């Protein structure tokens, strides 16, 4: 008699998520599915809006990474206006993206993942959150909170608001940094640098204890995709798309975002509101690829800054070359924070960052444009078609988290297969499934765990639909 186990909810990514585990007649795991259960419809309701409003509207897709949408939208607008933005505009946009990478990754690591690492996967879920962390390791908690604040504050210094600033626009940005703001950033750099160095050291000492997690949290071959800069350098704002495989071979390189439809397809499954992007040449579902910190660190030749490059060498040494375990997302995230802080340090001392020439103005010169940006969670595409007046006719958005959909499903299946046998749900499975998904840091999971616990409810349902067993975790 086959059974289904439903875990509801697991974590949130743009809304609720659930997991179902399908068992075969022998009680072994046949398949597991990660369901996303919210949908808002941006691609349709933006029709008819002026293109210039798109940054403000699409920022509201996500409160964790609104800057990604601001930038992708502004870059789409640059193309529709057919302008090359002033160098100061580009450097300021980069600064804001680096600040966002810092705050978003800090939230992921300190507020919600470090309780797992430090308090234990099987510790009391009522305490396994940022408040439990405050009680257990107040210094680490405070430093993590302040590191996120560093990123959020830079966003606010640039755009006047920490969340949903109206600042990046087609043609550039609205305003430069003031000298006072630069001083604040410079003053706070040493502490931020110290915090991330400490966190990296801590994580590396813990890594040896996590060999089971490294092996079971989504360790499988896949393609990796992201932007790279000149000579394959780590890139977060511009550059070209690169695909590599798990052996480190470059599968496709120098791809333009303009042609994304030729290499990216999206499939639909009836059981999730999140579509399933795949690499077109391999078809669906074989075209599984991963994006985000792990992908960016795997595909690049170098990070391009001194300390982050040292860390990258060690990372590759520990992973044995290309990191195929999704657990290494955490490690990659820390290296990216370090790299972001080093870049912020360079930019804050660059005279262009206070230049008033931040914006090019133009009208509607192209009726179509594609903008791309590396969001904290991976590559983000905005594609608009407009009429002569710049009113939106069509929108397509490919969101970072969505591109990990196939990989997240595979991860959940792998963890379930490790922890469920003979119809028995082993103690610790619930936490592991959550943590496996959390390694990907899907949008909105952050807050789920940042303040409080996440209750879980698993049902074992037999083929007739009768609940034969259930487990609650309060």
């Amino acid at each position, binding site marked *: 008699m086959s059974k289904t186990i*439903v875990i*509801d*909810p697991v974590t*949130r990514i743009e809304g*609720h998520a*659930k997991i*179902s585990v399908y068992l075969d007649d022998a009680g072994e795991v046949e398949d597991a599915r990660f*369901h996303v*259960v*919210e*949908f*808002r*419809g941006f*691609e*349709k*309701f*933006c029709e008819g809006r002026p293109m210039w409003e798109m940054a403000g*509207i699409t920022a*509201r*897709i*996500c*409160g*964790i990474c609104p800057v990604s949408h601001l930038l992708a939208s502004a870059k789409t607008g640059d193309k529709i206006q057919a302008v090359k933005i002033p160098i100061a505009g580009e450097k300021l946009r980069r600064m804001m993206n680096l600040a966002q990478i810092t705050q978003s990754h800090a*939230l992921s690591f300190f*507020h919600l993942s470090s309780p797992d690492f430090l308090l234990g996967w099987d510790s009391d879920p009522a305490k396994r*959150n940022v408040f439990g962390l*405050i*009680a257990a390791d107040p210094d680490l908690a*405070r430093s993590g*909170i*302040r590191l996120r*604040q560093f990123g959020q504050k830079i966003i606010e210094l640039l755009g006047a*608001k*920490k*969340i*949903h600033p109206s600042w990046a626009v087609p043609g550039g940005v609205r305003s430069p940094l003031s000298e006072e703001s630069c001083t604040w950033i410079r003053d706070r750099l040493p502490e931020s640098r110290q915090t991330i160095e400490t966190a990296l050291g801590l994580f590396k000492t813990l890594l040896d204890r996590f060999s089971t997690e490294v092996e079971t949290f989504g360790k499988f071959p896949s393609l990796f995709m992201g932007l790279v800069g000149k000579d394959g350098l780590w890139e977060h704002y511009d550059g070209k798309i690169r695909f590599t495989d798990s052996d480190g071979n470059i599968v496709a390189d120098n791809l333009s975002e303009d042609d994304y439809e030729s290499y990216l397809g*999206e*499939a*639909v*499954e*009836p*059981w*999730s*509101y999140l*579509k*399933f992007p*795949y690499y*077109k040449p391999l078809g*669906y579902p074989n075209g599984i690829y991963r994006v985000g910190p792990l992908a960016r660190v795997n595909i690049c030749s170098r990070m391009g800054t001194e300390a982050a490059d040292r860390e990258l060498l060690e990372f590759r040494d520990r992973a044995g070359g290309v990191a195929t375990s999704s657990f290494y997302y955490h490690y990659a995230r820390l290296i990216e924070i370090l790299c972001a802080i080093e870049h912020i340090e360079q930019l804050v001392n660059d005279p262009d960052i206070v230049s008033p020439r931040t914006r090019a103005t133009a009208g509607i010169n192209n009726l179509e444009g594609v903008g791309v940006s590396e969001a904290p969670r991976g590559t983000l595409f905005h594609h608009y078609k407009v009429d002569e007046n710049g009113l939106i006719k069509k929108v397509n958005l490919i969101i970072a988290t969505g591109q990990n959909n196939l990989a997240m499903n595979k991860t959940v299946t792998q963890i379930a297969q490790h922890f469920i046998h003979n119809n028995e749900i082993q103690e610790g499975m619930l936490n592991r499934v959550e943590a496996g998904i959390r390694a990907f840091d899907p949008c*909105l999971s*952050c*807050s*789920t765990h*940042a*303040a*409080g616990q*996440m*209750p879980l*409810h698993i049902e074992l349902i037999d083929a007739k639909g009768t609940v034969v067993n259930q487990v*609650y975790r309060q």
Partner: protein
Amino acid sequence: MDKIRLATVWLGGCSGCHMSFLDLDEWLIELAEKVDIVFSPVASDIKEYPENVDVCLVEGAVANEENMELLIEARKRTKFLISFGDCAVTANVPGMRNMLGKAETVLKRCYLELSDETRQLPHFPGIVPELLDRVRPVHEVVDVDLFMPGCPPSAQRILATVEPLLRGELPEMKGRPMIKFG
């Protein structure tokens, strides 16, 4: 004095209001001494929303069946419910699809017109909640004790609202710093 039992709930929104709550930064460490966070954020299993919640912040608009069920449950078990942020207060961006008529319009665009493989509308009873045809602000569904607008409300505004409540007093929601939208 017993700790205040605080919950935060999240319906159809972007999590920006929850992120702004986290922008309270080091004040969170003080907050941890004053409140028990008994539920945050939403679980779609409504049986999990605890009894006897003193204060609940509700982010987001009511956009699907599960949002609706959870909100009604939260209202029953909460003494003081705050409509938290512009989506909760006005339906804001999630409500932009209301002018297009039924939910099917937005679903068709995403899943039938902007997909390459296995084109279909997601439909999986019991797993994928059905969208409501009309997205509603929180107060259209349940009684609201206090409105806190903002997209998102700044951390300062959240602090100025929540702190008096922790002392058993009502905050004064007046003037630009407290009630400006956007």
